[in-house]
């Protein structure tokens, strides 16, 4: 390292000239060029949120069509083939294209603001993971719209997914699409981990970060470990289908259960990965409306990590009926029962926070607090499936469908909508309408429970999952009708949310920097935040930087107005992993279209592989190579190479 690389950042307060300089450095160019090249985490975050919400809408429409088919016995609206495509695409959409990306969106938008930083650790990588998410989503939906959607459920069991039983392009779209999407998830996870560990504001030691950071960090570590398993599974499937490799073909010495292991080693940790960040949103949002800190911060943070650790040891509970040895089953059954404990920690922490707080019933509060209820219902039904003998009856009936929707809608959708009511003012500078919010909440809450609470009984009465129709006389007719009605009420609730967003963007009440009088750093900057987030890098002295004077837990005070200026270039501060001691100035990259072009090249590559057009795949590979070359070319301003001599 050269002498010139050592520099102590200037310390000071914000002023007009400083702000103008930062604005010049950080702002995104207007127009299409800026749109394609921005690396601003806030813009990328909002794109993630909007895209994920679009997929939620598509998945929702698919479910409504299915509910029409199932509203009465012997439905004839759909053929079996159409129904199978729909339920598989619905699962794929909600789990892969909505539930995870929506949380990535919130994390992308919020993390640097929560952490007191100016961007994610790797802004270009961040842009790339969004573009790849979008491209793989379009890729997967291109399959569905051309009649080649997934048709074997989201879990896609072999041998039905093999070419012998599934000769169309359906499974090729799905297999390649999932490998494609896996790139995005992996890049995002790596970025979150480094961001959480290296870009926190000075003083924000690991025990002072918001719980949402714990949730997403834990989920990201899990993703990094488990996404390779599912990418491998889908890649092997594709090889089986296209090159006759027989990894899963029993007749040729392959093993169908290998698929199930690879899939669920990924699948179950993933379920936690798509709820833990949302639970973090509740842990951070709920206390603001209870006007006190969260009860048991350390216990909740530890339980978040514990859930994930145990979550790696429960995958076989999806395979209790697959004929595995009993001793093995008992182990996985035990872990699946024990994993209830860390969830109980979170539930009691939230309950105590409300109980010992002075709650203010806003729309966000309604979504957050009702989530506790839905979480408990989804939790206890999960506990029932953990018991092997009970699961031998419950599994693959509508009881499981009810369970997983309480988990995914209850612990993902409800917190996400609540989080939108909470952070919308920060993102847009405007409030969502509170009275429309009440209608929004109650319609969703009633519709959801009307649809899915009776579904537990449908399951207990033995209705199997994934059937395109059923005959009358099984005792399921009325229950199914109620569920169908409930699903439409739920859909109206979601529609009211969309109406509220559109209306409030146009004419919502203006929000100040800290409209809820909340405690964390994002509320110390204007709403919406400037491109550089923080004019000066804050210094943090507690878990609640903006409540310190009132909580008075110690004499130390955080500083948000006075701190490192860092305006010599696009800079932010790098800090140590545990204690957040500043140790380097991070040179942040300029906007660039390289990520967009790289994602485009990857898409070409995957289309080439799908259609087995070597030329197209080669072209895609070449575009990827060129984009990487531009991206990674060492640049002097980032001190990636020596200045030219002479």
């Amino acid at each position, binding site marked *: 390292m050269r002498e010139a690389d050592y520099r102590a950042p200037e310390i000071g307060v914000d002023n007009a000239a400083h702000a103008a300089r930062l604005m010049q450095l950080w702002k995104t160019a207007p127009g299409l060029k800026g749109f394609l090249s921005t690396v601003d985490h806030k813009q990328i975050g909002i794109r993630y949120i909007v895209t994920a919400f679009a997929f939620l809408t598509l998945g929702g429409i698919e479910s409504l069509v299915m509910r029409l088919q199932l509203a009465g016995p012997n439905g004839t609206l759909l053929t*079996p*083939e159409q129904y199978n495509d729909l339920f598989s695409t619905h699962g794929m959409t909600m789990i892969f294209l909505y539930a995870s990306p929506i949380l990535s969106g919130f994390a992308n938008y919020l993390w640097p603001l929560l952490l007191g930083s100016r961007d994610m650790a790797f802004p270009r990588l961040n842009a790339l993971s969004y573009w790849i998410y979008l491209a793989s989503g379009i890729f997967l939906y291109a399959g569905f719209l051309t009649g080649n959607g997934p048709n*074997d*459920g989201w879990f896609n*069991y072999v*041998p*039905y997914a093999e070419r012998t039983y599934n000769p169309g392009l359906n499974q090729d779209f799905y297999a390649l699409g999932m490998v494609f999407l896996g790139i995005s998830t992996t890049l995002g996870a790596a970025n979150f981990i480094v961001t959480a560990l290296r870009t926190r504001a000075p003083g924000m030691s690991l025990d002072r970060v918001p719980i949402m950071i714990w949730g997403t960090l834990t989920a990201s570590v899990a993703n990094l470990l488990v996404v390779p398993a599912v990418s491998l599974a889908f890649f092997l499937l594709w090889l089986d289908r296209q090159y006759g490799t027989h990894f899963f073909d*029993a007749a040729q010495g392959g093993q*169908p259960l290998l698929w199930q292991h690879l899939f669920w080693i990924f699948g179950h940790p993933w379920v936690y990965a798509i709820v833990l960040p949302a639970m973090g949103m509740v842990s951070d949002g709920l206390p*603001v409306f209870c006007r006190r*800190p969260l*009860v048991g911060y350390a*216990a909740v943070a530890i339980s978040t990590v514990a859930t994930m650790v145990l979550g790696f040891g429960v995958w076989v509970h999806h395979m209790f009926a*697959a*004929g595995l040895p*009993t001793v093995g*089953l008992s182990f996985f059954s*035990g872990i699946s*029962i024990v994993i209830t*404990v860390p969830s*109980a*920690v979170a*539930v009691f*922490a939230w*309950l*105590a926070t409300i*109980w*010992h*707080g002075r*709650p*203010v*019933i*806003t729309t966000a509060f309604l979504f957050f607090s009702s989530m506790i*209820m839905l979480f*408990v*219902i989804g939790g*206890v039904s999960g*506990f*029932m499936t953990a*018991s*092997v*003998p*009970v699961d*031998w*009856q419950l599994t*693959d009936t509508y009881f499981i469908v009810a369970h997983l929707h309480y988990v995914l809608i209850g612990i993902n959708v409800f917190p996400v909508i609540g989080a939108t009511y909470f952070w919308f003012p920060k993102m847009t500078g405007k*409030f969502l309408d*509170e009275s429309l919010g009440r209608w929004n909440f109650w319609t969703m809450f009633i519709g959801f429970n009307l649809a899915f609470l009776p579904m537990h009984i449908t399951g*207990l*009465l*033995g209705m*199997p*999952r994934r*059937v395109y129709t059923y005959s009358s*006389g099984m*005792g399921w007719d009325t229950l199914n009708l109620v569920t169908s009605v409930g699903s439409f009420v739920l859909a109206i609730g979601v529609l009211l949310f969309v109406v509220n967003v559109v209306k409030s963007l146009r004419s919502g009440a203006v*929000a100040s920097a800290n409209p809820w*009088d909340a405690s964390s750093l994002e509320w110390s900057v204007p709403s919406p935040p400037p491109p550089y987030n923080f004019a000066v890098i804050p210094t943090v002295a507690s878990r609640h930087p903006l409540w310190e004077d*009132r*909580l008075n837990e110690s004499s130390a005070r955080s500083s948000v107005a006075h701190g490192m200026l860092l305006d010599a270039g696009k800079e932010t501060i790098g800090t140590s992993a545990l204690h957040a001691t500043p140790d380097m100035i991070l040179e942040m990259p300029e906007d660039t279209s390289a990520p967009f072009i790289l994602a485009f090249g990857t898409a070409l590559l995957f289309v080439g592989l799908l259609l087995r057009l070597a030329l197209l795949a080669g072209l895609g590979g070449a575009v990827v190579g060129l984009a990487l070359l531009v991206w990674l070319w060492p640049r002097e301003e980032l001190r990636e190479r020596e200045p030219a001599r002479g």
Partner: protein
Amino acid sequence: MSPLDYLHSAGRHADIIRPLTWATLTISTLVVVIILVLLWIAVSRARASGGDRETRAVPVERGTSGKRWIGIGVAISSIPLLLTLVWTMVALANISRTPSSSALVIDVTPHQWWWEVQYGSREPSQIFTTANEIHIPVGVPVRVRLHGADVIHSFWVPKLSGKMDAVPGQTNMTWLEARIAGRYAGQCNEFCGFQHAHMAFEVVAQSQADFDAWRAAQLAPAPEPTSPEQTRGRALVEYRCGLCHRVLGTTAGAISAPDLTHLMTRQKIAAGTLPNDATSLASWIRNPQALKPGSLMPNQNLSGQELADTLAYLELLR
């Protein structure tokens, strides 16, 4: 009581599971009610209702630590968890002890979208194959060996036993023992393609004497036709159906579809899709794709006379 519900049971295997299902269901319901009440009380202590202004108006306080909630809550929750854990292990052990004394072993091979059922014996002449209807004697444990043929299916008779998958490349075991005579609904429970919905079967539990009589009847070949219609019908069945189906005692000898030798002893056709009566049988043979789209049975395009002849012969297969 609906045909597939598992809150009732009629056989030892399911009897072991049922009380555990009820117990966990009761615990779960209680937990939900308790948390709901606590949440209701906590929320109803609310200071205010409204939006941002109301929120800002309530001052922030450090408040009670509240950590005891977590300790006490987790401690209380652990009791039912522990109880369930122990009960689960005991039940699991009891079910896994597959009755070894059982003389009767049935080989079940699910196919897209029907069930092949073979009754084994040390004596080769005593082995026979049927489809979609499994007869067992009451009060006797029966072992079921599950073989994977095409894709994964799952064997499930909720009133008698939990599920077990049939996976290609491996043989899975389960067992049934009926306490009460009767007909018990069974259903494929692993998604297996277009007609997963129409892949049902029935277990008929009957007295040992009835079972023995049924078994003896199943071993007999198909009766000879007695009328010209039946003779023409048999020729049609041999020629048209014999590529997939088998009728013992004729040249129809294929085994890729249900064995038809004693078709008329079964109460349903097409794996529980239709009742086995003359009208349903006729419409099924005429146009299976309309009744069970995607089924592997092609439309036969029989003329009216051919259909009548075929039915006349099939009626004979008792």
